[in-house]
């Protein structure tokens, strides 16, 4: 049951992400990315992280993607112009060679790292501790309080910066 749910969510996430990258219309890309984030929220539920799943939906699908939608609609550039020439783009022979080497390196690294993974299995008794929202809040406001305050300053700076950058000059 859990394995089936994992494969369903994983397939949705991978396919939606592929279509986001393959899509020429940014409007559809944003919609497909919301689908992908929904599937990832399902995976977080499977990982005993319901709080993270809900924040994923509210912050990512609800806030960040709406911001993207606003900009796509505001700029009104539905289609991306075609590539100038195949040789100049990254799909030319040199680009393909570099890409192949990088993908091979990533694959080798992943196989190496995963084969060294300790065979320790998850202890089901820890599930309550991991999924407990009270536990997350306690850790966030005690041990990680400084990082929490730093991110609030970061958000403020980003907000001021965004307003200044996007403002029309007089």
């Amino acid at each position, binding site marked *: 049951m859990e394995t089936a749910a994992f494969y369903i969510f994983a397939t949705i996430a991978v396919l939606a992400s592929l279509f986001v*990258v393959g899509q020429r219309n940014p409007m559809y890309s944003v919609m497909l990315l919301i689908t*992908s984030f929904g599937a990832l929220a399902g995976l977080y539920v499977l990982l005993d992280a319901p709080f993270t799943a809900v924040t*994923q939906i509210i912050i990512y699908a609800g806030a960040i993607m709406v911001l993207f939608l606003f900009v796509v609609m505001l700029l009104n550039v539905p289609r*991306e112009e075609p590539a100038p020439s195949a040789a100049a783009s990254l799909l030319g022979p040199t680009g393909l060679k570099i*890409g192949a080497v990088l993908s091979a390196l990533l694959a080798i690294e992943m196989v190496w790292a995963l084969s060294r993974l300790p065979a320790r299995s998850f202890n089901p008794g820890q599930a309550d501790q991991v999924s407990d929202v009270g536990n997350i809040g306690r850790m966030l406001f005690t041990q990680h309080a400084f990082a929490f305050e730093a991110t609030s300053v970061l958000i403020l700076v980003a907000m001021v910066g*965004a307003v200044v950058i996007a403002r*029309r000059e007089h």
Partner: protein
Amino acid sequence: MVPLTHYLVLSGILFAIGTAGVFLRRNLITVLLSIEIMLNAVNLTFVAVGRQIGTVDGQIITFFVMTVAAAEAAVGLALVIALFRHRETLSPDAFTSLKW
């Protein structure tokens, strides 16, 4: 019971898709969306590994990554708007004034 390896491989696939998007797309908005895919792949790794070792630290880092992603999206989209106003295009090839 899905083993940790499956989650890590899924995360690797999503990260690779995001990287390919950053390099192949010729639209600044799609490039920003690809960066969001990469951030989410990393979030999945954090949550999966955090659960494996039985702490909430993975979820807390995910929380911070989401905050930084929100800040990045706000500033990135403000830059996209400013650039579009400047050149009437979203192609990254149009903005090469700083290229050496």
